[in-house]
């Protein structure tokens, strides 16, 4: 099983390694814009609690960015499944299906973490104060896992890029802005807030921000993320097995 996971990961690593400079450069654009527009521009005169808005913003940007990168890392599987049919190579190989899913998720986590590291470096260059702990990295990994699973599930179920982009438009984009990334969800209407508070990105944003500002960590949020990760894996596994129908 471990050998198969490594094989699947190896494939994605080979591809990433070849495109690493392009990957890094392209992943710098969005966070730079967020930091310049919201951190430097709009946020310069805003004070949130005892810190600056930039300190408030950076964990949110890391949460939303790791979500987007992890999700979009696995959506190309849709074309590999439908058009290139290269997934057939894995299905006929003597390997456990779970190894394929785990290998792909790990590759997406790596991309998410590289992207988060870029934001971290940029944020520090912009003068943000961050407290990065192992738990902070752990939460980031958990967030990457959840959204890599969403990407995997979507790639197995959707039949075109258009459908995949609808997930981006109707699910990821609203979450990017509303899940406590740019502002506290406490300012939202109560019914709406209840819905937003259930979503995984909200828990990631608050956890990362809490750790970064050295506030107490809500362990129930860690549990919620873990449940999301488990459900995501089960759904991904079922979606992959459905390819055999």
């Amino acid at each position: 099983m471990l050998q198969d996971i490594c094989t699947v990961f190896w494939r994605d690593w080979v591809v990433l390694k070849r495109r690493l400079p392009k990957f890094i450069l392209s992943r710098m654009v969005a966070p730079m814009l967020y930091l310049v527009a919201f951190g430097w521009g709009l946020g310069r005169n805003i004070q949130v609690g005892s810190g600056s808005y930039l300190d408030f913003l950076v964990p949110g940007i890391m949460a939303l960015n790791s979500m987007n990168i992890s999700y979009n890392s696995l959506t190309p599987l849709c074309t590999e499944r439908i058009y290139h049919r290269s997934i057939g190579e894995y299905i006929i190989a003597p390997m456990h299906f779970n190894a394929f899913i785990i290998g792909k998720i790990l590759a997406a986590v790596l991309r998410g973490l590289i992207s988060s590291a870029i934001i971290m470096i940029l944020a520090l260059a912009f003068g943000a104060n961050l407290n990065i702990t192992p738990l902070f990295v752990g939460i980031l990994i958990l967030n990457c896992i959840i959204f890599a699973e969403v990407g995997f599930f979507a790639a197995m179920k959707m039949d075109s890029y258009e459908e995949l982009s609808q997930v981006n438009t109707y699910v990821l984009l609203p979450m990017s802005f509303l899940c406590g990334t740019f502002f506290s969800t406490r300012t939202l209407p109560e019914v709406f807030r209840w819905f937003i508070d259930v979503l995984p990105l909200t828990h990631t944003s608050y956890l990362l921000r809490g750790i970064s500002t050295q506030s107490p960590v809500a362990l129930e949020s860690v549990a919620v993320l873990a449940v999301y990760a488990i459900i995501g894996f089960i759904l991904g596994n079922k979606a992959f097995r459905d390819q055999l129908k």
Partner: protein
Amino acid sequence: MIKIQGLIKEFQVKNKDKKTVTKRAVDNLSLHVKPGEIFGILGPNGAGKTTTIRMLTMETKPTLGEIYYNGESIKKNPLEIKKLIGVVPQHINFDNDLTVGENMELHGRLHHMSSEKRKQRIQEMLDFVELGDTINRMPRSLSGGMKRRLLIARSLIHEPKILFMDEPTVALDPQVRRRIWDLIRALAAKGTTVIITTHYIEEAEALCNRVAIVNKGKLIAIDTPEAFCKSLGRITVEWDDADGHQYQFFESRQEAAAFAGTLEHGAHIRRTNLEDAFIELTGRKEGV
């Protein structure tokens, strides 16, 4: 070596009224493939050949029926059985983000080959299909014939005992097709069991020890190409009349010549081939 019993595959499809209906792609298929033979599954497009191969290679699950490899059901230990088989798919399914060499390497890794063995077999197989110098090229830069040969090379890296080839020469020019036939014969000579689907009758005739003729998911007949021809009569007389193109089969050339002499219009006398058997059995023209 391979035994199929009562294999059925059904799909849910939308009909012209957009209602979901059940379509039976493979209908109660039973057959037996012997070790070391080149076994052909011959049928027109949509006959269920690819679906049969996909079930045999565990790419899709049968709706009903059993598949046995060396007496063992595929349900019992699929991973062990997968180690025995190699697949040349109909669709060119290379990973387009990897080079030729990396595609081969991925296959070797998926079959748990050691680094040293992988390296050796990749070069060996690329040389076998005369693509040794393409190792660092991207698959999309290769011609259609080169891609087909590369599919064969990839499927052989882990030295499979059974090779499934789904329409391996489809859309290839005659020269490349004959080159691939030579490769298949070379494999069979080394003891590899080859199961090949094709809708090219001359391919089945040229390569296969035995042929199963399938149509609309059903097995119509199974025999050697020679036996199919013999059952009809070794010699065919072909002619055109007011009712269209006609055929008649005879045991000897003398009988055929005597019959041809009675015809008003000219007739063509030739050896009976698998195409004649196919048309007689399926009642349709090749590839329709």
